[in-house]
């Protein structure tokens, strides 16, 4: 098939950026979307033009590196599919394809389709863990966890941190990402001791990074390539509100 690609080109963080149109011929329907971009880049290099920079690594939908908005939809808009797993059989001859980076205040563009997602890491540094010293863990089967609880925690744990939820959200909110981690740990017995403190610290870090807030558009859960649902956001808000009403530090057993 032959395609016309409109790709966002931006030299660096400070450049204004613009769309550039590239016709591309003889694309095979068996290619992945990124392999299609590989072919374009080969041709650009052949012509002495700088190839399009895009982030990618595992190319099997698990590392969370890749991500671009295709035709207005993060990862191309196919359920449960990252852009590296999107195949060209979903396109047809003559299609015009618009390709942009994630667009969000907290994800500045570094070059072309590559954005800076370090804000996600900083939220994790603020509390995205269960504090357990190496070597101090109890025998694994001494913690019994009902199968359905473990499965639900796993549903949230599948988040790959790609940022599609932020790109999809009209508010540029990161609440699906943050709630997934808070929910995974909040559901498990191991996560209980730090549950309130974790919710508080992660949400406050999220706000500091300039992400927006949730207004229940649910665009995030539709864009999520791991199909993580927004029910976790309710859990996160509940834990955060409780934590703010009665912080762990304030809850003293002694008379005030």
């Amino acid at each position: 098939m032959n395609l016309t690609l409109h790709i966002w080109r931006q030299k660096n963080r400070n450049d204004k950026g613009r769309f550039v149109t590239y016709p591309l011929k003889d694309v095979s329907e068996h290619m992945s979307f990124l392999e299609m971009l590989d072919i374009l880049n080969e041709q650009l290099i052949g012509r002495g033009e700088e190839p399009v920079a895009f982030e990618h690594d595992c190319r099997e939908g698990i590392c969370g590196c890749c991500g671009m908005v295709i035709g207005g939809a993060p990862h191309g808009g196919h359920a449960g599919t990252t852009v590296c797993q999107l195949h060209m059989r979903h396109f047809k001859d003559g299609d015009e394809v618009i390709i942009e980076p994630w667009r969000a205040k907290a994800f500045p563009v570094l070059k072309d389709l590559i954005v800076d997602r370090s804000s996600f890491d900083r939220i994790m540094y603020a509390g995205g863990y269960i504090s357990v010293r190496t070597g101090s863990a109890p025998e694994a089967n001494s913690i019994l966890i009902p199968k359905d609880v473990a499965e639900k925690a796993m549903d949230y744990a599948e988040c790959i941190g790609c940022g599609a939820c932020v790109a999809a959200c009209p508010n540029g909110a990161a609440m699906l990402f943050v709630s997934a981690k808070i929910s995974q740990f909040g559901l498990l017995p191991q996560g209980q001791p730090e549950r309130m403190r974790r919710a508080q610290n992660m949400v406050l870090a999220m706000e500091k990074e300039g992400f927006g807030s949730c207004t229940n558009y649910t665009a995030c859960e539709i864009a999520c390539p791991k199909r993580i649902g927004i029910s976790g956001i309710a859990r996160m808000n509940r834990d955060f509100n409780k934590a703010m009403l009665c912080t762990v530090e304030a809850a003293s057993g002694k008379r005030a």
Partner: protein
Amino acid sequence: MRLEARIPSGPMDQKWSRRRDEIKLVNPANKRKYTVIVVGTGLAGASAAASLGELGFNVKVFCYQDSARRAHSIAAQGGINAAKNYQNDGDSVYRLFYDTVKGGDYRAREANVYRLAEVSCNIIDQCVAQGVPFAREYAGVLDNRSFGGALVSRTFYARGQTGQQLLLGAYSALCRQIGAGTCEMHPRSEMLDLVIAGGRARGIVTRDMVTGKIESWVGDAVLLCTGGYSNVFYLSTNAKGCNATAIWRAYKRGAGFANPCYTQIHPTCIPQAGEYQSKLTLMSESLRNDGRIWVPLKAGDNRRAADIPEAERDYYLERIYPSYGNLAPRDVSSRAAKRMCDEGRGVGPGGRGVYLDFADSIKRLGENVIRVRYGNLCEMYERITGEDPYKVPMRIYPAPHYTMGGLWVDYDLMSNIDGLFVLGEANFSDHGANRLGASALMQGLADGYFVIPYTLAHYLASTKFEKLDSSNAAFRDAEGYVQDRMKKLLSINGKRSVDSFHRELGLIMWEYCGMGRTREGLTGAIDKIRGLRAEFWRDLRVLGEAADLNQELEKAGRVADYFELGELLCLDALEREESCGGHFREEYQTAEGEAKRDDAKFCHVGVWEYQGDDRKPARNVEPLEFETLQLSTRSYK
């Protein structure tokens, strides 16, 4: 080259506890005065950095990805082994040790493997405590499944994403230390050289992949946790960015490279679809628990799978290896698949594929059970191929997946260069000539959580360090090398892209140094690689600048190193005149086509020592002594 394995004395099951009792400790107040450099944030790197930071060392961590959470350990699917014996099926530390040594075709170091089996149980405890949501039974206890090369069920798993969950566990432990200020994280930073000063590894030189800035980092020890080199084959199951530059630079600075020819070709991957293919996708070995592998009995049978009657199918693994059947180890299964395709009985485009069929299991257990066990894998298969594996059997074919070879290390995981430690897939020590399924995750985490915190502390406590900063000549020299090389890559101004060279190198490696190797083929391959390498340095085109985000420049440096490593791989394969595990020399096989070892001549580790760009490297030897297990012929029949 000094190759002292420093294996503790005493009975096998007491060696590790003896070592731990002997080691020197660092005064808690002094720990923060030591700087430890950790390169790579996969299972080995993240777990090491987190554990060392927690102990109070000053840790600097580097990775090439935009976040530590994306290291390629994340893509491991099937599971992690541990000798918990929760299934009451006869497992023990000894049995896990035995299976691993045997699986590695008796080419691993016994004492290292025993320690690995010993700490395997601690890993599961640690991960559960971190909130890793392993699969569970209804009673709330942990579930297990079977993996290749074992007759017990000892593999713990989290759906088909065990690597992801273990890595996110280690990453969260690292996040905690970054938050606490003991670890300093440098993502989008690629290590381009190792710095040796006063005979010790004292630092690294990195390139900031956004600004292009070349920077020196001084430390008291360097830990390379940078993974394997399967991408030398271009098409592999590794992530596109996986590279051997860190270990290759260490080799060129004097570190021994052990057994480079031990590469693992994984039997169950989705076959290549076309010329443009950029990587191959693994289908977890766990599928072989319920999937049966077969090809048509007759060569050239082009009927659809459903139209081939039972009597005209050959379930060849069950036929040849009745006791292990579809769970024969990876090297054995891969070679069997190749033999079937070579006989003209392969299926799918080009005849390079065999069936992995769930029909019987679906009949026996119901589609729902299969969906619960392998749903995400089947979905991934369907997304890539457009075929529904619940209705048509999967087509699979072997692909490069893991490298057992790597930098030589002693029992303490230190290379022959003082202060240079190598963990996880980047070292050579635990898997011999073939790694069993679900053992890579175990090794990465064993090295990082439970070995290095002891052995590194001992090195630091027993060494007197001279004060050093990055104005030292050794750092200037390494920075100069890095700058020159980038200038060179950018100034060739030829016609061909990096990928076109990498693809061609991969074809040579796969053809002559893949599943079957011969003297003639390997000798020819070395000439071909040299020719192509000369063309690379003559006709490469890298656009853009060094002081910018430049993905072509990143790739060019890695591929330049792969040319040299590819040649060493062929040389090692050529000089190891036996077949063992994943290294199969056509000249050395039994009448049934199985690998034929030569223990009299090759029961040793082959360690290569760099001698200069135009000189053949020297081959050194560490003899392997088996004090607990008897060297015997591996049989899975």
